[in-house]
């Protein structure tokens, strides 16, 4: 099972982890990223996630297969939320299962780092003061400058 999904409903980490169960699995490592109430000194009220479904699936499958080639993982998966999420809500779940814990830890760490770097998902922060900003895009210089 190497599967990626986009979800517009609350994630259920326990149910997602159960998908990774196999008789030959001895260790499962999962990561849940949740909405934090602060970012770079600003009080965050909620996050809005948007994705490109087709490109996200293309990139996620590439990353999952890459992990399967690098580590002896027996199963792995990722689900990313879209929509507007309040503080505390789960935004992403990543899980990796292997025969032994070391490979499961390595694969899970690899997956979350790669997904954060490449997955076509964008987050917009809305702050307690009512303003908002797209992350990684707010400070973009105009084309033709710099």
């Amino acid at each position, binding site marked *: 099972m190497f599967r990626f999904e986009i979800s517009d409903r609350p994630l259920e980490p326990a149910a997602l982890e159960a998908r990774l169960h196999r008789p030959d699995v001895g260790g499962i490592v999962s990561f849940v990223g949740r909405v934090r109430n602060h970012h770079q000194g600003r009080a965050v009220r909620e996050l809005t*996630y948007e994705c490109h479904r087709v490109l996200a699936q293309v990139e996620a499958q590439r990353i999952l297969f890459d992990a399967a080639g690098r580590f002896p993982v027996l199963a792995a998966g990722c689900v990313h939320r879209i929509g507007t999420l309040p503080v505390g809500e789960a935004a992403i779940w990543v899980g990796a299962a292997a025969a032994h814990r070391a490979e499961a830890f390595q694969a899970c760490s690899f997956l979350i780092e790669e997904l954060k770097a490449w*997955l076509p998902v964008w987050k917009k922060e809305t702050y307690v003061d009512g303003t908002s900003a797209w992350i*990684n895009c707010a400070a973009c210089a105009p084309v033709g400058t710099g």
Partner: protein
Amino acid sequence: MDLSADKQTVDGADGALIEVCVEYVAVLKEQRGADEETLCTAAATPAELYAELTARHGFTLRPERMRVAVNACFVPWHVSLRPNDRVVFVPPVSGG
């Protein structure tokens, strides 16, 4: 999906105009005010197309900070555009 986006023509210096579909996401969607448009362009590459669209819509993202996908595949900015290509300009991602 915004089906109200008008088809627009971009005047090119030379070469045939081709019709392409552009999808906008995240900050580009906000700046364009639409999530998709079909247009005729003389742009030969995604790089030229983005420059034309930036001149028209005032996009603030520099292409060096983005990737581009054509027909659901990530491609270099200098590939040739073909009629009916579906182009997605991909802002810096921020998932997780």
